[in-house]
Structure formats: C-alpha cells, structure tokens
C-alpha cells in the first residue's frame, strides 16, 4: 500500500461529493480556501491509514501535540508528521468542522461513534477548543434526559440492586443547581 498524497482541499472536495453536500456550502468552503494567502508552507500530516493531508500552519497551531512536536524538531516541516491515532476520516471531519467555524449543528448530524472518534482525536491532538465544544455538545444532549435514556445512549449497565433502584426513586426530591466553587 503506497502512500497517497492529497492536498486537504481535494480531500474535502472528494468527501463532499461522496456525502452529497449542499453545493452552495461547498462553494463557500472552496472560496475560503482559494482566498487564503499561501505564503507559509502547509504542514503535512500522515493519518493512521497512511493518507497525507496538507494543513495550514494556523490550523496546526491549534493542535498543540503537533505544534509541540514541530517546535521540538527545529520547525522541520518537510517530512509528514505521523498521527498513528487519527484516521483520515476523522482528520477530514476535524478540518471540515473547523472550516464551518465549529458549527454545533454539523456535529449533531454525525453518529455518536463518530463524535467519540472526534473527541478521542481532539484529546490526542490536544485541541482544547474542539474538545470543549464536543464535550459540551454531549453534556447538552443528555442534560434533561431520563435515567433510562442516558444508560441506553451510552450503553451503561445498570448495576444497582432492585433495593438500591427503589431507593433512588424516593430520594432526589431537591438539590442545589450548579457546581461552581471558587475555592
């Protein structure tokens, strides 16, 4: 399996065709790409499935793991940086999400497995903003749901005994909202 070289732009286009994205949105993405001034060289990232992406330095700066790696290696950026924990699909999604300005509605169209992949990648790449947004999306989704819904959603086994379960329903009559603590 040889290495495939694709620019991030053509990867996105291909992806968009596969997903049948809205063409107007596609043009906006393309437009943004072509308007960008490419004076500094794009950084090459190689995903776990051996696909190379060329990503703008400004985006790589948000990937603290990668940025640190580059700085530790005397800013040597001609060799592709391996990302053994990130697949091409996931990196593509991250770049797409970023291009859409972290629009939460986009994440809601993804399946939970994909969202988890994004979270794991954001954690690995140390992308704090992305991680905060994704964990918030999950929190917002389960906030007002029932116990049964939350267990089913996350595949959590109910390990309470019937006596413990009965007790849960009696308790929790009131509680103080919020957690924040200054000290």
């Amino acid at each position, binding site marked *: 399996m040889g290495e495939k070289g694709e620019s991030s732009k053509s990867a996105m286009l291909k992806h968009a065709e596969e997903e049948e994205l809205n063409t107007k949105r596609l043009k906006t993405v393309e437009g943004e790409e072509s308007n960008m001034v490419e004076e500094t060289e794009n950084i090459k990232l190689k995903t776990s499935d051996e696909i190379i992406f060329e990503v703008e330095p400004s985006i790589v700066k948000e990937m603290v793991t990668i940025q640190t790696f580059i700085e530790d290696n005397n800013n040597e950026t001609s060799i592709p940086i391996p990302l053994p924990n990130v697949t091409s699909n996931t990196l593509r999604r991250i770049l797409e999400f970023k291009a859409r300005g972290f629009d939460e509605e986009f994440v809601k169209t993804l399946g939970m497995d994909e969202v988890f992949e994004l979270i794991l990648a954001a954690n690995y790449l140390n992308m704090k903003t992305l*991680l905060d947004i994704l*964990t918030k999306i999950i*929190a917002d989704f389960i906030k007002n749901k029932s*116990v049964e819904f939350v267990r089913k959603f996350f595949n959590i086994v109910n390990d309470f005994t019937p006596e413990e379960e009965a007790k849960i329903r009696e308790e929790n009559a009131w509680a103080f909202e919020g957690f924040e603590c200054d000290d």
Partner: protein
Amino acid sequence: MAIAMPESSSSSSSSTTKRQKQEQHIHQQEEQPLIPGLPDHIAQLCLSSINPCLLFSISHSWRRLIYSPSFPPFFSLYAILSHSHSSAVIQFHTFDPISATWLPLPPHPPLHHLLLRRHPSFLSRNLSVQSVSAANRLVLLAATTHNLSPALPRPLIFHPLTKTWSFGPTLSTPRRWCALGSLGPTVYVASGIGSHFSIHVARSLQKWNLQNPNAVWEKKTELKDGRFSREAIDAVGWKQKLCMVNVKGDAAKEGVVYDVAEDAWKEMPEGMLHGWRGPVAAMEEEVMYVVDEAKGVLRRYVEEEDSWEEILENERLKGAEKIVAWRGKLCVVSASSGISVVDVAAPSPRIWSVRLPEGFEPVTVHILPRIPAGV
C-alpha cells in the same frame, strides 16, 4: 461501594481468602468505565455540568463520581443541631440532598468550654450560637459557656472540601453575641457584648478576609451608638453592603446599612426596614428575601420600589428564625417546623421539609460544597 462477589464454597483458609480479595480487586478495576468508548478523564469533562441527581441514578461509577475530589462539588446543608432534651451541647451535621442522608461532621478540636444551646438552669431560654459561611467554609464565631461567658476567643472554622477544622484570628473581645455577616470571603463582626457590656465593643466593627492566611481582624468605622448590641444579629451581605436590624421578629426595630466601599454606616431604606419581619438572607448577595415569621409569608425585596413582594405563604414558614439562600433555593430554620427548603426559581414556588435526625432540633443551617469521598 464494593461490588458483591459470590460467596466461595471452598474452605476459608487464608490463601483462599487472599485469592478472593485479589479477584475482588481485579473485578473492581474491570468495572465499566464512566462512558464506554471514552477514557474516564474525558467522560468527566462531559459530565461535569450535569445535574448531580441524574449522575447519582445512572450506575455505581457515575454515583461515585459526584463524591470524587476531582469532580466539581454539589452543595449540601451544614447544620448546627442540639438535642431536643436537656443535654444541649451543640453538634455539627451535614445533610447530603442527593442521597438524602445526614452525617455528623468529624469532631472539632477540643475547646476550653462546651458550646451550649441552653443553660441547665434556664432551659426555656436559648443561648445564642452564631455562625456564618464565607469562602466555602463554616465559621462559628459566637457562643456562650455554662458560666455565661463568651465561649470562643477565636472563630472555629470547618472546610468541607478538605474535611478539616481550624481556627481564625483571635478577636480582641470574644463575643457572647454580636452582629455577624459576610460579603464574599470576608467576615464582619459588629457590636454585641463580650463577658460584660462595653460601649466601645457595642459600637465596634471589624472584618477578616478568610482567603488571606495571615489575616487579622481589621477595624472599620464605628457605629454611632450601642443600640445594636442587645441581641444576636444576622448582618445580611447584599450588594457590597451589610444590612441589619436590632430586634428579631415582628417587633418595632431600627435598621442600619454599612457601605463597604465608603466604609460608612447609613440609614436603612424605609421600605426595607418596614418589611423586615423575620430572618432575611440575600441570594448570591443580590436578591434579598424575608420570612415574616408571624404570618409564615416569604417575600422578596424589590429595590426599585423599596418594597417587598409576596412569593409564598406556608404554615411551615411560621416561627422562622434563620434563612440562607443559594442557587434559587432558600433553606428555612423554624423552631416549630424544623428545616424546610423553598424553590423560588421554579415557575411556581415549591416547599419541602427536611427530616431531622431523631431527637435533634436545628440551631442554624448553611449551604456549602459537599465533603468529598476519601478525604
């Protein structure tokens, strides 16, 4: 919370027991992660803003999370209680509203005197016990000994998040009672009396910032006379001011307001004073509430109109002696009905009673972060 292992039918030799313990330990480690598919530290990020009641009900590991020192704490009640019968030494307990359980606090360091709620010779009269919360700590500041002297030369402090007791800086005149309040992390003590009346003490004001480890009591502008020294007073911290009245309950009274920014005492607005007919508390130091203890009516202060609007009337609110406010809920202590919790943030206010431990009556209540597990 250990997961129960099936009982082994083999003989209980020491090697079998050891193996069982090892198996149990491994089983606990294999217990399901918080969110399957995510490492626990990331799952914690997702769950840190979820209602603790929901987390409590999902599974054992989600339940343990809300008590973990690394997880943002929910809030519990911290109550000073005394036995209903003659032995009236005060005790400290905490009520966890998520599991609905009472637990005594760890014992405080020994004091020279017992802290009494009632004197053995005067059972019908309560001795004042005054405490305040600031900087996520409970501070006990004024109490009386069996020979009617001030019991605490230094404030006694409990910090739930470290589950530790400590002492604050020594007061130049320890008080049997005083006007006590807080604004943010700063405690204010005004007026009151020590072992005997002194006009100097009756006019005094001092403050202490709990967040400063080397803090001492700092004198501020005095009151103009001693008319606030007659009783134990709750000074209510509200919008960077301390508001107080000099007589409890429904009787005619005088009020005064201390302005922190100007370090000056000012008149209390007339409407505020007129409606101050029982214990008062300020929600997050922004919105003031009063319980009209004679009528059992809860009211909210409307600053723009200098008047109080009614929120709720309930039998349980009669005889109210103390209230505290936090995150849309009020906790009310009444001699006749014990502890109640009122939700004032809900579209229609609700009230619950909190059952006290058998044989105890409440002196006062505070709202502070829960004690973490394993501390």
